[in-house]
């Protein structure tokens, strides 16, 4: 078997396609590295500036009083840019990188502009609306996901389309089978040979890419990032072997190599180029998006209910009761605001998840999802970020309530100045927001998709085996 593998590799090393592949992959990977080095420092700088500003807001408010903190909340939350942004862009341009903390609304002022009735902060999830101002042409990013998903898979077909049909045309296949080698050994030898000869230029290109990126002083790859890169590299190999197996399958069945290449190309175009977008369109046409109109209708009656409730409490004689009515109005208003935002996000998320599930039939989309997941970009990462902010928001509210409870002089009416603790709090004690990424969690959720991809490879490989065993030479 090793003889066959070795022979295949030598055969390929001397060919024109090997040279072209090496040049192409190297050029793409260098482009990718250069782009990353140009843009990543800017991205990190922007993130750090934003975080510093948001932290300043938090400390200023905590410095002022517990009431200010309870009313205005923290500053905006920003998504930490991933170190492995060059591996998969994950549609970042569509995803917002911020969860905003809305300023408290003002419901009523007197003629002098004093606020009689206002609210407290709430989380809101804005759209990344930059893209509807971008008038430039729409092109995909040259990230690893593109290079592997499109180029490497095409190269895999390019290396295998004549694996059997070419040898059959030359007559060498008959010669080889005249020896006492079982057919499955020949198949595995061919498979490994093709996979290895594709891996060589790919590994070379990846090494050059990583060398460029890791030696630059502006980017630091952590140990965890290297681990993730390892996973991504093996993913690339798994994905490539899928197309190698496909190539072998078709090549074993078809007599002429030209026909084999044609069939393979058409299959590739359908699988990789058209299936993802067509399936996504089909998925999105299943679920018509609720128009803003309906959301508006959902929202308005709720607002009026709140008003009615508040009006009851407002006319009460007792001061305590009046303050409580106010506090209830504030918190409930903020909660409803937040719930509305959350509902909308959930609605949209479920739509995206449905579309993703349907597009997963295409191995190219599977790869893209997996790459984005392990690179810490893309939609799942965005949801994790949103979850992080929600957890922190709860934590901060609990902190405010606990601090207030610890003060015996306070009336424990949150959100109203008169009802809250007036003791100064130290800004250091206030919990800070930290955006984190968890690899274990990624792995668990990715297991399903990984399994599916492996299944594709196994099915195609056994298909190739069956085809080759039964074929007449």
């Amino acid at each position: 078997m090793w003889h066959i593998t070795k022979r295949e590799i030598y055969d390929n090393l001397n060919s024109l396609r090997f040279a072209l592949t090496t040049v192409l992959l190297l050029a793409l990977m260098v482009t990718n590295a250069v782009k990353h080095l140009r843009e990543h420092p800017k991205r990190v700088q922007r993130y750090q500036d934003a975080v510093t500003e948001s932290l300043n807001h938090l400390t200023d408010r905590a410095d002022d009083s517990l009431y200010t903190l309870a009313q205005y909340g923290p500053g905006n939350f920003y998504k930490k840019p991933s170190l492995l942004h060059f591996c998969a862009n994950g549609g970042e341009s569509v995803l917002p990188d911020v969860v905003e903390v809305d300023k408290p609304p003002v419901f009523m002022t007197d003629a002098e502009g004093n606020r009689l009735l206002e609210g407290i902060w709430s989380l809101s999830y804005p759209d990344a609306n930059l893209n509807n101002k971008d008038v430039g042409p729409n092109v995909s990013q040259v990230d690893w996901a593109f290079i592997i998903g499109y180029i490497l898979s095409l190269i895999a077909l390019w290396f295998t389309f004549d694996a059997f049909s070419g040898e059959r045309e030359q007559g060498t296949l008959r010669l080889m089978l005249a020896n006492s080698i079982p057919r499955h050994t020949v198949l595995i030898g061919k498979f490994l040979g093709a996979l290895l000869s594709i891996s060589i230029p790919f590994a070379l290109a990846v090494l050059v890419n990583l060398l460029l990126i890791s030696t630059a002083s502006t980017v630091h790859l952590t140990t965890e990032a290297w681990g993730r890169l390892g996973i991504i590299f093996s993913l690339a190999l798994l994905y490539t072997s899928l197309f190698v197996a496909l190539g072998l399958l078709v090549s074993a069945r078809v007599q002429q190599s030209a026909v084999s290449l044609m069939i393979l190309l058409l299959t590739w175009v359908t699988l990789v180029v058209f299936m993802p977008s067509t399936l996504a369109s089909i998925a999105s046409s299943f679920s018509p998006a609720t128009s803003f109109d309906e959301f508006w209708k959902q929202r308005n009656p709720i607002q009026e209910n709140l008003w009615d409730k508040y009006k009851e409490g407002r006319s009460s004689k007792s001061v305590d009761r009046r303050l409580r009515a106010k506090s209830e109005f504030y918190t409930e208003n903020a909660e409803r605001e937040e719930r509305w935002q959350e509902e909308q996000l959930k609605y949209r998320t479920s739509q995206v998840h449905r579309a993703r599930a349907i597009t997963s039939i295409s191995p190219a989309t599977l790869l893209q999802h997996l790459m984005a997941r392990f690179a810490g970009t893309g939609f799942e990462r965005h949801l994790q970020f949103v979850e992080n902010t929600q957890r922190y928001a709860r934590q901060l509210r609990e902190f405010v309530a606990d601090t207030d409870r610890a003060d015996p002089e306070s009336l424990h009416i949150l959100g109203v100045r008169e009802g809250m603790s007036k003791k100064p709090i130290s800004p250091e004690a206030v919990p800070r927001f930290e955006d984190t990424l968890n690899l274990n969690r990624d792995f668990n959720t990715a297991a399903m998709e990984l399994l599916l991809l492996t299944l594709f490879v196994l099915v195609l490989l056994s298909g190739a085996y069956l085809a080759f065993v039964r074929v007449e030479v």
Partner: protein
Amino acid sequence: MTLILIRRELLDNLMTFRFAAATFIMLLLVVANTFVLIIDYERRLTGHNDAAKMHQRQLQEKITYSAGMDRLSADRPPNPLSIFNVGFDKRLGNEVQVSHGVVPSLWDGYMHGSSNPFMDMFASMDIVFIFEVILSLFALLFAYDAFAGEYEAGTLRLVLTHPIGRGYILFAKYIGAMLCLLAPLLISLLLAVILLTTSTSISVNTDDFLRIGGIIFTSVAYLSVFYLIGLLISAATRRTSTALMLSMFVWGFLVLVYPNVILTVIPRSEAPDALRTSAFNRIESIWDTFDRERKHYLVTDDFPGEDWGYELRGWGSRSAYFWDNPRTLMYTYNSIMDFEGFGEEDEPKMPHAQKHFGFLGAQTIDAAGRTWLIRKPALEEIFIQPANVERVWLKLSPVGLYDAATQAWAGTDLLGIRDFFHAARQYRQSVINYLYDHKVFESRQWFAGDKGAADWSGLPQFSFQRDDISTNAKRALPDVCLLLMINVVLFIVIFLIFVKSEV
């Protein structure tokens, strides 16, 4: 003789597996996608209608003109030809606010709420994209063995023993293969158009058919470019396996690699910040002057006090604010007064307030007009020019040319979308004329609804008509001509190679 040659080529190609495969795949993809695209278009149309209705309703609910002018907007319907090439139709804003305080531009537009922005993550699809990828592939597959295959089989020598010029042979090959390639293209397009016309929600008029004709013509030119590239490789290499390999490499490079990589390679030209800042400063000074004059008026008029609301005490809300966005050079002033009724003591203040709002309205319109004079060229330089440079780079590949030309035909290119904002600006002008003609600024309804609410029925209605076919043709023709020129050049080169080659 030429006819015999053409017939031979035609029959040769028609009987092959690749012709069957090409027709089948093409039909499958185009019909399936047209079906999905039509559903998608209908969804967008419903979203547009809902949004337009909501805007109309929100406007009708306002009892004062000043509150209504804050709610007036223009909506862009989806373009039915976006099924062929979606271009910017889904990407750029599809509604824009029309107020007297700001001249609307592309950068003030936004998307109405019925679309899910996350869904843009998935690659979008249109018929031209299918052609872009598949047609080029088929053209190369038909061409790679045209000369190399005959050379290997020895039939080329046989044909050349006849007394025919080599030019005729080349011509016959070209025509024969092109006719074969046209069949799947035309059949699939025909089916797409039939699907389009049977859909009830899409109204296609004569102009649209002409536009589709333009798209078909451009597709044929594009197809021919790739067929000629394949012929060139075939004539130059003389071996089918090498020709096939090279063709695939060229295809991968032109269709996949170049359009995606080139914009990463060329550094993105950012417009100088200095330009933005200086333009914004000039705009800011316009509004500073405006604010000074506004305050000056309040001080010097007959009414004591400087309150812009004339200390009116009634039932309702009032707000006034400056609003700016340095990124898009936006700056405006808005004052809204929405009162349902007044107390007795307010009546003497009314004439003063009315006179003031008359003055303020004219001033705001004037300041907005002067802002636009600065803003328009600045926006052009900051946003449009870098994007145009990128577009030129993309056009170095026939794929880019094809995409640009079909976008222009469909009217979903940047210029087509900007037509909408141009229409919105004209609409704003007609609204302003209406407001002046009916002395709305000086009227009591501008800020109060107690003596009769604002009458919205007389206000001009916005409607957006796409430009006629001649505009589309004018925009598409440069790119189409370039495609045709590439065709001619390639043909000449192949001819030269073929004439000089030994058989």
